[in-house]
């Protein structure tokens, strides 16, 4: 049996899904968090049932790619759990009526039930059940209240099987239902609601945005540097380095195996960035450089997501984003891209048109460095001075903006206007924030660490075989002539296809000047996305548009690298 969780965006379907199946999925407080479906299973009586978390949709007449997926999923299910935001009953019932017109059993979960009382909303449950003719269960998915009742009611799901109606007829029916089951009493505004109103004012909103973004950046940097300086560097230098030195002498201090496992040891000291062995650089890069920034980045992002701030930022950024052929909501995939480009490009599905998705995905893969690469930039370029980090970021920002303007004028089609629901501010619980953080950190550890180790291994072997030398000579005119980098750095650019963090690490032993390091960082950030991003680009854009995107990417990377080489 297949159970579909369907409902308007941002009503808590993903939280209900986690409660039912025990499978944890990313849930946030903004419409469009779920852009593809997740599967899980639950026990129903003595049988197992498949549960699917469907992207949110307001109607079964889809307007975005994510809503299209939702409408298609409906044909494959056996039962629908229609999750409704009890504080927005009227609007949510529209989808419910559309579901009733399909021949599929429905059970209604009246979620966010705890919020109705203080908003002065009173709903007569028995009357609502009587009118709808299907089970209606009040739930608070975030605390788990009502979930047990919901599970017990799944077998009682029924299909009212009413004939199709027009839009106006449905709204008339809903008007009738609301008159009978809901009344609203006056109540005072809470401080969260007053903050909501302030965020929608021009000046208050802008000040708040600058404050939020600046403190987010400072928090990430502060926590990241703290973790490196007080925890991970001491751990590696004081505990791990002696072990490595022992192992090195055991392996005889040189030779093929030694070079692969430990790398180059110069002067009896372990240089974790430059030695390029599996147990040295292979562990140091993911755990002591990247992880310390991944943790605070996703902590801050998770808080912003769950509070419900991101759609408000989208509203403020709308005018600027229109210059780039996008609308404000594209800022959400862009911010996700600062963590990892893969979920970011998936998240472009919340945009309405193909043209917007092409522009957004191209801009993200070219000008938005992922957290792993940023951590390396902080580490390597930051060691030369923070003003140089600023040059790298400034360049990428200008590229993002100018390339966006160019794409806006050259890509055919039009970009629709912003139309988005702004969620209520919510105080997230630490439990959910930390759980989401752990999911993302675990995703990094499981997905990235093996690839980093593989990349380091491949590099050591290719060095030993002397293949890099031949390639370096072949590409020297571009790399040295145009970009002003030593010819060996082509190997780093090539490795960038596997992992950007390892690639930037490869520049470390080349004794680059600060200018070369800046050029190298920018070119690495802009040139080919890592293979994981590449696969997602291919899947989301199709072969032809992916090739276009890649062409723009290579041209832009070489052009900007060349300009930087001349200008700095």
């Amino acid at each position, binding site marked *: 049996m297949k159970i579909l969780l369907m409902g308007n965006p941002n009503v808590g379907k993903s939280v209900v899904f986690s409660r039912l199946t025990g499978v944890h999925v990313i849930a946030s407080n903004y419409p469009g968090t779920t852009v593809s479906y997740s599967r899980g299973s639950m026990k129903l009586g003595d049988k197992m049932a498949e549960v699917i978390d469907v992207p949110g949709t*307001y109607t079964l007449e889809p307007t975005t790619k994510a809503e299209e997926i939702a409408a298609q999923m409906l044909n494959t299910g056996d039962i629908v759990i229609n999750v409704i935001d009890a504080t927005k009953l009227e609007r949510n019932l529209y989808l419910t009526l559309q579901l009733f017109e399909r021949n599929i059993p429905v059970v209604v979960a009246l979620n966010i039930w705890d919020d109705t009382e203080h908003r002065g909303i009173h709903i007569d449950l028995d009357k609502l059940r009587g009118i709808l003719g299907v089970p209606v269960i009040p739930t608070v998915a975030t605390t788990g209240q009502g979930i047990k009742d919901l599970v017990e009611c799944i077998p009682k799901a029924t299909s009212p099987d009413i004939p199709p109606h027009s839009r106006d007829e449905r*709204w008339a029916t809903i008007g009738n239902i609301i008159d009978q089951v809901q009344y609203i009493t006056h109540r005072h505004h809470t401080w969260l609601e007053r903050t909501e109103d302030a965020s929608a004012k021009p000046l208050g909103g802008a000040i708040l945005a600058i404050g939020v973004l600046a403190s987010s950046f400072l928090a990430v940097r502060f926590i990241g540097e703290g973790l490196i300086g007080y925890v991970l560097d001491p751990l590696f230098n004081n505990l791990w380095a002696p072990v490595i030195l022992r192992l090195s002498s055991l392996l005889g201090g040189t030779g093929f195996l030694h070079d692969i496992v430990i790398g180059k040891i110069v002067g009896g000291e372990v240089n974790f960035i430059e030695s390029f062995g599996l147990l040295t650089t292979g562990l140091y890069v993911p755990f002591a450089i990247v992880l310390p920034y991944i943790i605070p980045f996703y902590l801050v992002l998770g808080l912003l997501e769950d509070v419900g701030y991101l759609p408000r930022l989208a509203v403020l950024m709308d005018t600027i984003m229109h210059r780039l052929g996008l609308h404000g909501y594209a800022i959400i995939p862009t911010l996700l891209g600062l963590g990892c480009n893969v979920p970011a490009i998936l998240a472009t599905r919340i945009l309405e048109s193909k043209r917007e998705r092409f522009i957004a995905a191209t801009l993200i893969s070219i000008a938005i460095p992922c957290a792993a690469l940023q951590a390396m930039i902080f580490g390597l370029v930051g060691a030369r001075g923070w003003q140089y980090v600023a040059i790298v970021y400034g360049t990428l920002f200008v590229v993002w903006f100018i390339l966006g303007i160019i794409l806006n004028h050259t890509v055919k089609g039009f970009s629709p206007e912003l*139309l*988005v629901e702004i969620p209520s501010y919510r105080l997230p619980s630490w439990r959910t924030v930390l759980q989401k953080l752990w999911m993302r950190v675990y995703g990094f550890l499981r997905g990235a660490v093996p690839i980093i180790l593989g990349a380091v291994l491949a590099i050591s072997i290719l060095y030993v075989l002397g293949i890099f030398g031949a390639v370096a000579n072949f590409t020297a005119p571009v790399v040295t002539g145009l970009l002003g980098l030593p010819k060996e750095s082509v190997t780093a650019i090539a490795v960038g296809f596997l992992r950007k963090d390892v690639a930037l690490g490869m520049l470390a032993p080349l004794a680059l000047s600060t200018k070369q390091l800046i050029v190298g960082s920018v070119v690495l950030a802009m040139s080919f996305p890592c293979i994981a991003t590449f696969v997602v680009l291919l899947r989301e854009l199709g072969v032809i548009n992916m090739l276009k995107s890649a062409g723009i990417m290579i041209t832009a990377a070489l052009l900007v690298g060349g300009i930087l080489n001349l200008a700095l």
Partner: protein
Amino acid sequence: MPNGKQITLRQMRAGQSGIVFQIQGGHGLISRLSALGIRPGQRITKVGSTFMRGPVTIRVGNAQVALGFGMANKIIVELV
């Protein structure tokens, strides 16, 4: 009760409320707005706007919705 004065959503001031009278757009716009609860006969309150012809935020029922400047210009409201 509506006092009969009709203006566009764009012209409304923050804090003003009104009843949606008409949406001067095509089928696509009408159905997208309607899905978000913005349709003739509904009471809406303008919450705020943004600089430089940016989006307008309104409250409809218990929900806040942000919509582009152009759309706000196509929604005719009777002030209450």
